[in-house]
């Protein structure tokens, strides 16, 4: 039961007091046909259920009322009219009679007793912060030292953060590399150890020859200093002096 079914608003306060139904049963006298008019009750069962047995009767048009005690519309589930057997239903119309208790929910109308005026909707006010205004920032950027300092600080902080991040990544990479290297070196040592298990051939090896004599011959017996070297040393002294200049 909803607004579409009732044709009116199915709000709290609507009571159904009866159902007016109309239908035409089309059948032959000898055919068995049953018509059921019912409405489900929310939570199980039926609010009303009426069955018409048309067995051995002429078809015809029926109009009748099912009176109900005032029943809140919230209790109504789906309603239906259905025919079983040999025959058909035509020109079906079902009307619900109702009363509307406007003030069952006092908030339905301000004239109801115990009506509480709803709180007004408070509009959301956007607070203007001139410091967040990009136009203001742009305008004051060239002359406002505070803004410049803040900007510089912000930039430095960002650079530091980036540096830290890079360092962390690099350390992580080198740590990984060392781990890999350690694994490799250990494998190498193990390999060498395995190789050293058979080194007897080194003990029995014989190296031919004995002493390697000096074969250099000094012609004339005098060693002359290289002038270019002195020159080079002079330049080196100048160089050292230049280096020492920075500590003065």
């Amino acid at each position: 039961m909803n607004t579409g079914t009732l044709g009116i608003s199915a709000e709290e306060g609507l009571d159904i007091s009866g159902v007016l139904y109309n239908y035409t049963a089309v059948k032959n006298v000898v055919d068995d046909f049953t018509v059921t008019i019912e409405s489900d009750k929310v939570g199980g069962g039926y609010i009303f259920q009426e069955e018409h047995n048309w067995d051995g009767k002429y078809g015809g048009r029926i109009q009748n009322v099912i009176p109900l005690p005032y029943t809140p519309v919230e209790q109504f589930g789906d309603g239906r009219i259905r025919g079983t057997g040999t025959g058909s239903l035509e020109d079906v119309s079902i009307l619900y009679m109702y009363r509307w208790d406007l003030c069952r929910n006092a908030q339905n109308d301000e004239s109801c007793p115990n009506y509480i005026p709803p709180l007004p909707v408070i509009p959301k006010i956007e607070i203007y912060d001139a410091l967040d205004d990009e136009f203001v920032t742009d305008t004051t950027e060239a002359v406002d030292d505070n803004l410049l300092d803040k900007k510089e600080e912000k930039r430095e902080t960002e650079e530091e953060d980036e540096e830290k991040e890079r360092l962390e990544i690099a350390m992580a990479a080198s740590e990984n590399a060392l781990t890999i290297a350690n694994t490799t070196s250990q494998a190498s040592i193990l390999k060498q150890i395995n190789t050293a298990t058979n080194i007897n051939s080194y003990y029995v090896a014989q190296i031919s020859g004995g002493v390697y004599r000096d074969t250099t011959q000094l012609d004339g017996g005098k060693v002359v200093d290289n002038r270019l070297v002195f020159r080079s040393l002079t330049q080196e002294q100048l160089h050292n002096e230049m280096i020492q200049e920075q500590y003065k």
Partner: protein
Amino acid sequence: MNKLITLFLVVGLTGCSLFAKKVEANTNINGNVESRCTVNTDTVGYYGNPNAYTLTTLPASAGQVPVVRVDTSLANAYKAQISYPTSFSSSPSLGDTVVWTGAVAVAQTSSNDMSGYQAASTTADGGAMRIYNLVHAGATWFSVSSVATYGGGQQKAFPGGSYTAVVVAECIAQ
């Protein structure tokens, strides 16, 4: 002394005759019987005029079939007698014959137990009256169609004016 006795006798006889006089009183017992059957007009009918010589209640000819509702709260106590008109109750002066046809039928009922009313009905008054035994309590709607043709088959035009005919519906105790 004798005179005195005679006087007493006369007085005694007179007294006896006074006490023996007849006294009568008529006391009414009133009562009302409220009918358990009511008849009401559900739909007012009117004639359409598809051609100059015909008045008809058929919707196809812009007419409307009247519907009479009969309610009874007592089963097997009343019968409904419904008649379609066979004359105008008011009309312009008519110099020629009007041929009347019509039909009475059960339009709808409040219970499927009444679905046999039409089949069980009888006719009277040359077929213009149909009689229904109201064997079930409840409401029954009767539709009454009517067609009047002027000219006695010669298709003469009705004189211009207002025409009224009456459907008679009665609920009579069985």
